[in-house]
């Protein structure tokens, strides 16, 4: 590690946000470089100053009486009993009708909100997949997050380990497509299984993500491939299993991108489903016990 490298990541080191390996590199560098040691001490000092000055700033202190008022109001809200009102008999019919109408309305509204949430979750998952393609396969920025698929299968998601069989994946690909790499990487808070393929001079990503956040893909049946769509200027084709989603992301044209998706979907679906079933069986067994 050079001094310039250290200065780039010194703040992340202080925040304890580096990978263990990088941390070791930093420590090794610091052992041999006095200049960077004092740079680090100074940055730590500056942070301390920011924290102290902020916490002690007179204008930012809680005004007198605010805490008591806040506590009283919250306490009232927390322990107050819901008021019971007994309606007169004559009003009961009207009230019941109103309750049913409002209930139905709420139900519809709730369903609508739920579907909006599901769509938003799917959109976020898709953005994660295209982001992973861009940051990892195209810009090589996620090296620090990469682990092998078998390790990912062990510590994160069993379905990812099944994809470690690169021979089968290469065999499933159409002629002219070359599997370059398969690993697990993390982007924007999600961990993916990621296969990188070269096809028609373009980099193609097959990105597999866990999809247990109630997201709803615009896909009719599990296993069907979504009519491919554009996201973040990339061509995307996607399909789902019970709790995973698979994305094929590239800058290929729609037909070529679909060709890749169709060629790998039977294999991947089978592998992912078998992992999902194993997991479900395990859960059932555990429950029985």
């Amino acid at each position, binding site marked *: 590690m050079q001094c*310039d*490298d250290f*200065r*780039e*990541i010194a*703040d*992340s080191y202080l*925040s304890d*946000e*580096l*990978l263990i390996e*990088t941390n070791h590199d930093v420590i090794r560098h610091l052992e041999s470089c006095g200049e960077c040691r*004092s*740079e680090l*001490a*100074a*940055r730590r*000092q*500056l*942070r301390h*100053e*920011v*924290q102290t*000055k*902020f*916490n002690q*700033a007179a*204008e*930012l*202190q*809680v*005004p007198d009486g*605010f*805490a008591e008022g*806040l*506590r009283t*109001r*919250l*306490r009232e*809200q*927390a*322990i107050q*009993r819901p008021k019971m009102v007994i309606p007169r008999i004559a009003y009961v019919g009207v009230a019941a009708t109103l309750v049913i109408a409002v209930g139905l309305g709420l139900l519809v509204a709730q369903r609508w909100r739920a579907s909006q949430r599901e769509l938003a979750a799917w959109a976020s998952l898709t953005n994660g997949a295209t*982001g992973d393609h861009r940051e990892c396969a195209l810009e090589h*920025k*996620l*090296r*620090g*997050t990469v*682990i092998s698929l078998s390790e*990912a299968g062990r*510590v*994160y998601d069993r379905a990812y380990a099944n994809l470690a069989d690169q021979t089968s994946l290469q065999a499933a690909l159409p002629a002219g497509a070359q599997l370059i790499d398969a690993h*697990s990487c*993390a*982007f*924007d*808070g*999600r*961990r993916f299984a990621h296969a990188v393929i070269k096809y028609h001079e373009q980099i193609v990503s097959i990105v597999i993500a866990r999809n247990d956040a109630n997201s709803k893909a615009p896909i009719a049946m599990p296993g069907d491939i979504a009519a491919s769509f554009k996201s973040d200027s990339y061509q995307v084709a996607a399909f789902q299993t019970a709790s995973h989603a698979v994305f094929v992301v590239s800058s290929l044209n729609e037909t070529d991108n679909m060709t890749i998706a169709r060629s790998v979907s039977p294999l991947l679906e089978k592998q992912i489903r078998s992992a999902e079933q194993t997991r479900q069986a395990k859960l059932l067994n555990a429950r029985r016990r």
Partner: protein
Amino acid sequence: MFGFSREKRRLEDWASFESEALPFHVDLYRLARWLLRNQAEAEDLVQETFVEALRSFHRFEKGTNCRAWLIRIMYHTLSKRRRDSNRLRVVGDADEQIAETVAAEPPRSGEVVEEEVLSALKRLPEHYQEVVILSDVEDMSYKEIADALSIPTGTVMSRLHRGRSLLRSELGNYARSLGIGVNRVTSGSKLRLVETDRGGKSNAV
């Protein structure tokens, strides 16, 4: 009998909220006061935040960072408010321009006064201020900041990097007196992605 047990339950819930969440009103107020620059508005925001937190306290995961959880609620409340009042903030492409403008200002010189650090912080564009405060003052992880501000972790990292560089150059002499190599900081340099976001890391383990 049932009424009694319900009441007992409510009292227990309150006791747990009071001991876990309420003590952070000091931190929340400071942050709200800083963000809104107005005492009455800050008080309102903190109160609204705690009302919402009380309502959803059953969703708070025990053992996780309660202050970060509250701050997340506060930011969500604030952004809802801002949406409601149509007072949208400048975001997106303008970020870069603002950053460049600020970076181009010569570092202030002179004696370091008590307020120097805070006034330098105030001179940063708001979205750099908030990530620096959430990280340095509130000790939140990149992931927690990302959740609170509803932005990707990568954006948190790049804003922090830029924000701290700007802060160091804003502080000029002061930073130099601490021995920080201000001259070597370039506001245009990209953060190298050897970092990982905590979400990914913790998921993986």
